[in-house]
């Protein structure tokens, strides 16, 4: 086998991810066809569902908000060469933080106090849940993949106990907290715009979307503009060199995990403060895992993460339409698409690398030959 020439930068950053995405969608299309439906009409239903109907864009962006937060959580850890699979549990705990703050302060303080405190609490609780795996990785070499998986399950048990026990709404059977006071509601865009007499369709899209956009910018500044980001990337690329340069590697690992957990925790501002207005079982619904797909597709860059989040937001919203339009395919198809994307853009990311680079090289060679 001849070794492949290196892929040009643009091909590596744009062409290869697009090819991987298309491969994933192609396989999904085949599955849809095998289920007896037309993949193209499924696609058009999903696109309409995600963008065209009056409230659909709002819903799409509402999902996008979740994925930005969980995608950033995975991406920052990736920059330090760690795999944080614990976004799900960290987001869950973030919801607890937001919920506790909202329940305790909501009735007595104005939104200007309640909301910032609740937002910070969600980040802090998420960070705290990531601290133990981070600490164990840095100081005792415990594999972060395994510990974060375990912490997801521990979080799940903890929340069941809390929601069915100490935090349950009195006189209720279903395991959830009472609804917050309205002071702890993060305003929805439809309401905000209505107050200035602009009428848009009602959707769950709320102010946390702005927070998510701010998080993207913060991420970019942190990773590429600050000294800590510099150390973080150095640790990720080459731990031995980082040690040589006097960087305290364990400290960087722990802080990175704290930030990662905080991003994941912030997802709760959207779900809990923005939409549900109470803490309930399994409100994270796998969004933490989707963050992994988002980070992989978005190549751990804020722009990529935003685009990937938008894609997944559209998939989740458009996928819900499948339930209404088809007999044989439902919103679970979105999970299949998500799985395929993780498989092709993650585990098989470089399957097309070699053929693609040979292909490009042969085109370039031919061009050269023509020019000569």
């Amino acid at each position, binding site marked *: 086998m001849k070794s492949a020439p290196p892929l040009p930068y643009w091909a590596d950053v744009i062409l290869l991810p697009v090819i991987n995405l298309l491969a994933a969608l192609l396989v999904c299309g085949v599955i849809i066809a095998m289920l007896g439906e037309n993949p193209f009409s499924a696609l058009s239903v999903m696109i309409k569902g995600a963008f065209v109907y009056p409230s659909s864009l709002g819903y799409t962006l509402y999902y996008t908000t979740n994925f930005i937060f969980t995608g950033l959580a995975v991406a920052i850890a990736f920059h330090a060469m760690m795999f944080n699979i614990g976004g799900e549990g960290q987001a869950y705990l973030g919801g607890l933080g937001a919920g506790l703050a909202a329940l305790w302060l909501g009735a007595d303080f104005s939104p200007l106090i309640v909301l910032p405190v609740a937002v910070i609490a969600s980040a802090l609780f998420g960070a705290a849940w990531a601290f133990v795996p981070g600490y164990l990785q840095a100081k005792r070499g415990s594999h972060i993949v395994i510990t974060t998986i375990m912490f997801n399950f521990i979080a799940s048990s903890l929340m069941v106990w809390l929601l069915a026990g100490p935090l349950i709404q009195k006189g209720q059977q279903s395991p959830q907290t009472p609804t917050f006071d309205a002071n702890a509601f993060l305003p929805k865009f439809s309401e905000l715009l209505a107050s200035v007499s602009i009428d848009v369709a009602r959707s769950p899209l709320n102010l946390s979307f702005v927070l998510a956009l701010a998080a993207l910018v913060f991420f970019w500044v942190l990773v590429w503009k600050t000294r800590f980001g510099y150390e973080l990337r150095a640790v990720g690329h080459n731990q031995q*060199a*980082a040690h040589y340069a*006097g960087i305290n590697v364990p400290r960087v690992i722990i802080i990175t995990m704290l930030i990662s957990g905080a991003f994941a925790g912030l997802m709760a501002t959207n779900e809990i403060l923005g939409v549900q207005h109470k803490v309930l079982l399994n409100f994270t619904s796998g969004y933490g895992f989707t963050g992994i797909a988002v980070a992989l597709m978005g190549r751990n860059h804020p722009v990529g993460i935003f685009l990937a989040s938008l894609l997944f937001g559209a998939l989740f919203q458009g996928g819900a339409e499948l339930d209404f339009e088809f007999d044989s395919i439902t919103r679970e198809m979105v999970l299949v698409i998500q799985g395929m994307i993780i498989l092709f853009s993650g585990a098989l990311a470089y399957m097309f690398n070699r053929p693609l680079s040979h292909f490009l090289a042969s085109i370039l060679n031919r061009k050269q030959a023509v020019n000569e």
Partner: protein
Amino acid sequence: MAIKTGKGDVETTSPFAIELQNVCKSFGRVQANRNISLAVENAAIHGIVGENGAGKSTLMNILFGLHSADSGSILIDGKPVEIRSSADAISLGIGMVHQHFMLVPNFTVLENIMLGREGDMLLKDGIASTMRELEELETEYGMQVNPHAKVEDLPVGTRQRIEIIKAIRGGARILILDEPTGVLTPQETDSLFAILRALRARGVTIILITHKLAEIMAITDSVSIIRDGKIVGSRETSKTNSGELAELMVGREVLLRVEKNAASTGETRLSVNGLGLSSNDGQPLLTEITFDLRAGEILGVAGVAGNGQSELMEVFAGMRTFDTGQMEILGDQIDSKHPKHPDSMRKTGLGHIPEDRHQHGLVLNFEASENLVFGFHHTELTGNGLLMDQKSIRSHAETMIERFDVRPANPDLPAKNFSGGNQQKLVIAREMNAEPKVLIVGQPTRGVDIGAIEFIHKQLVALRDKGCAILLVSVELDEILALSDRIMVMNEGRIVGVLDSADATERRIGLMMAGIAKEEAA
């Protein structure tokens, strides 16, 4: 039991067990082997000597099927063969003892020996027959091992014996040993040689790769010298001597004479007293290191790679803690209970050009400008604000690139896209710019082109003339000779002796590198 010959009882007509013809092998742009031709007689011990990175191991990996040659041919017993995998090599009767042992640490000796040649599906019969074989090997060669011991609990000498048993069991008649004595004590080396002689007496052809000349003289029948991927000479051992071999091995034409004045030395800046360090498994890495380094001098550390120089540099740079002794650096006392970390060492005024720029000196994916502040990213080079000042980093990079003539002059290019010489210039520019009071330099010109070598040497001398105390570690003897004011020779983690550069000749240092005391080497 005699060794089973893998090829049955076919009479061999060729006097040579192995012939290599015009073997070439490149890794990317690096030519590891160029047109290597070599013939080894039946039942002989053939030595291959050369410095680290000369291409010895690559050649042997080709012979054992771990790499495939780009061109050239291999003949075993006069017949051309194709060796595509180690399975091919094994079936041709070739066994190899790797430099890094291929032993599973948490397996027993028996399990390791059986691996790959277990006999049946079930291990039961294989275990019995392997045990019988082991007994026979013990009576035949005196190779004693406890088959039920775990390999990780055994000393290196024993581990190597297991590797040899693995290789010759089941009929290897050509045995390759890659740097077998690098990790052995003198006593273990003696018993290894006894085994090799016994094997030779029973018709096994042996190739011994080493960089230790004394061993070549002690055990081989013939020897080839390899340098920069080429064979530069082949001799019958009885008709040569270590002096000639040393010259062939390191004796590249001296390309440069560095202009320099006599050193005007000042106060002691680094003082080491009785420093010792052991590896995790208790092997001594550094023993009783004692010396002083003064302002305004270059102290060269000569020695074959792997004799403790790397560890010594890492200790000084704060990257490793040591076990015994003390050192004083720029007035700070450091011992095993009061270690200093790389950042505080750097703040104290220590610069460190590490010997492996890929492993330590650079983050290859970082841009040149980012690498030029690596380790200094908390200094004013990156500005004083909350964020790193990109303008300041960039203008620093432009200055450095200009001053140290880095090409291409592009601060945005990732370090991995520069040539070896320019990568090295990035490291040197960064460390020298901080105007260190003590500079630890490792292999400053490894993999660097000639023009850059001259430039780097001049920079080092200029820094010395400004009063910096420089510790220069290099495996290039001519570099040590050209730059040093004093030369310290290391062997097996000890200081063999310290010479004034006026008293140093290549031959004398070469002998000291082989562990011969300086008085005898005179």
